[in-house]
């Protein structure tokens, strides 16, 4: 059963198997693939997963990250709704952690504040319980592994599926451990797990990550923690171009160092989309959870 699902996913979302010019649009056209999927399994993971659908649209993806429970404990749903209303394509909901070691000062501070505000895994799930009544765009939970381990990885995935979360980003769960121990659980609940690559990641490892991935690859723009830099130079440009030339089966979305229209455009010149985190949190710190329109409007 599980093996069948694995096959299903790699079969269904492998853009490399489609002709290149319509790489992302092509999914919907492949009616035969859908038939195969439906034959193999009662419900159609591909059709259900909003991330895959969104990636199929002919546009550059704007993804926004924020820490759940920041600035106020109960801002989560309002922020998500406002982001969708203002045209954001994908949202990464940060599950706060006491020791976020891949994050810079801005996200650390928002994470710490969210914990002070009382945010927990259960409270976040409670807040999101009815989110699919009002929000249609893909939602990803981004968090560190330990809180998920304590909740129980399977229970966590099950809850995500019930709520309508589409994927997870877990920076400290390495792809090797995921592939060995957790992949089958994620797939059982139709969750897409997103892995990071950096300028230091070897081509060989990128290809391995690409083979394990089934949504998009999170392309870290430079060797840094989040929120560390402003603007991209030749080094990033060359890196973006190098990755684009690898013709990976998964599209790439660039994160880290994207803060405005200029960096968004640079990042999406080669990649499918870009993620803004620290800059949006700074905006929340300064303007509260209102004026989201202003922020998103400034990006594109």
């Amino acid at each position, binding site marked *: 059963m599980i093996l069948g699902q694995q096959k299903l996913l790699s079969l269904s979302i492998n853009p490399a198997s489609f002709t290149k010019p319509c790489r992302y649009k092509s999914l919907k056209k492949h009616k035969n693939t859908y038939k195969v999927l439906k034959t193999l399994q009662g419900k159609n993971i591909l059709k259900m997963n909003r991330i895959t659908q969104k990636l199929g649209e002919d546009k550059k993806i704007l993804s926004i990250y924020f820490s759940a429970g920041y600035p106020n404990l109960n801002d989560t749903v309002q922020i998500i709704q406002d982001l969708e209303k203002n045209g954001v394509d994908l949202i990464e909901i940060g599950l706060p952690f006491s*020791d976020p*070691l891949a994050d810079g000062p801005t996200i650390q501070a928002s994470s710490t504040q969210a914990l002070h505000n009382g945010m*927990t895994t259960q409270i976040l799930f409670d807040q999101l319980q009815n989110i699919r009544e009002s929000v249609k765009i893909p939602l990803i939970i981004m968090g560190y592994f330990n809180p998920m381990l*304590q909740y129980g990885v399977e229970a966590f995935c099950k809850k995500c599926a019930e709520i309508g979360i589409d994927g997870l980003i877990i920076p400290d769960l390495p792809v090797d451990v995921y592939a060995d121990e957790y992949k089958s659980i994620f797939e059982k609940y139709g969750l897409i797990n997103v892995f990071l690559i950096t300028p*230091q990641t070897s081509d060989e490892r990128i290809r391995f990550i690409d083979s394990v991935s089934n949504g998009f690859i999170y392309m870290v723009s430079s060797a840094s923690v989040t929120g560390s830099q402003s603007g991209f130079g030749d080094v990033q440009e060359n890196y973006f171009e190098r990755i684009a030339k690898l013709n990976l089966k998964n599209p790439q979305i660039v994160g880290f160092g994207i803060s405005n229209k200029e960096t968004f455009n640079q990042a999406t010149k080669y990649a499918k989309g870009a993620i803004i985190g620290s800059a949006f949190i700074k905006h929340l710190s300064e303007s509260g959870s209102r004026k989201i329109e202003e922020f998103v409007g400034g990006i594109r």
Partner: protein
Amino acid sequence: MSFNVNEKGYYGEFGGAYIPEMLYPNVEELRQKYLSIMDEPDFKAEFNQLLKDYVGRPSPLYFAKRLSEKYNTKVYLKREDLNHTGAHKVNNTIGQILLAKRLGKKRIIAETGAGQHGVATATVCALMGIECIVYMGEIDIARQAPNVARMKMLGAEVRPALSGSRTLKDATNEAIRDWINNPVDTHYIIGSAIGPHPYPDMVTRFQSIISEEIKWQLKEKEGRENPDYVVACIGGGSNAAGTYYHFLHEPEVGIIAVEAAGKGVDSGHSAATSKLGKVGVIHGCKTLLMQTTDGQITEPYSISAGLDYPGVGPLHAHLAQSGRGEFFSVTDDDAMNAGLQLTKLEGIIPAIESAHAFAVLDQKKFKPTDVVVISLSGRGDKDLDNYIEYFKL
């Protein structure tokens, strides 16, 4: 049962490398090369030469006559306190700086709590003329001023960790972030048997000189290589790992681990990880970890700054869970009194960390014929202010 790390970096269910992808190239390079570098004849020669001439090894194995009389058993002290810089920490920093040089690294980072590992790292960086940055919690900087001054004299830059609880775990987070930001030229010298694989094994191997010496020293004194018990205090667990290493697979040697109970295991102010911890992931390693039910890492407490780490090395988590190690918890009060007693009976002022190990003599009854080797991991000079305040000296 094996107590060596397996090829995936685990001791039983503990260990592994739970690291962000940004750290993968560095950690993977280390994983692929550490054993072969440590096995090179010229590495071994340089390491052993420095341990002998610079650190002052072998450290004596001292028969503590008066302490033995008091407890009616045979107590030997492994005198790591007599090492250069005053503790066992330097065994590891010498090893890692030589390794870093062979990896072509130009810049060293480290974390420190009380400052002992920071001083040991700054020392070897001065010795080798390599840039050194030590991360230290803002709160620890304030309460460990002499060690901060020592690091500065040695040419290191001490950077305050301003995030979270501003102590050791946050200094470790900051060091990891630095490594993420400087992935090419920098080596991170972790000070304890913690962190992602291969660190716990690498640190343990560098510290294993302690048990290697105990074996031949005990042979000279008692006519046998194996004691009945080896005893060590555990924070992250590097001195303990080194003290146990060559006895892990000798079933007749009892392994005793002593954790800091702080104000009492159940007081809410404790660092007794094996009693209070649950399986979790901290600093790249799956181990026993003090945390909330929600998986947030909690701040431990001990009067000894070297033992208040919320996790424990994966080897020790495995020793605790498998029952191979016998774990004790010692309160601040018992540790301080054990430290004072050692001072009065043997003329040795121990570090408060090491004093915890001696308090086990009051908790466990040993036979008169038992040979008990206690790791005296550090000297108490750094703790004088604490002793003065505690005993109103």
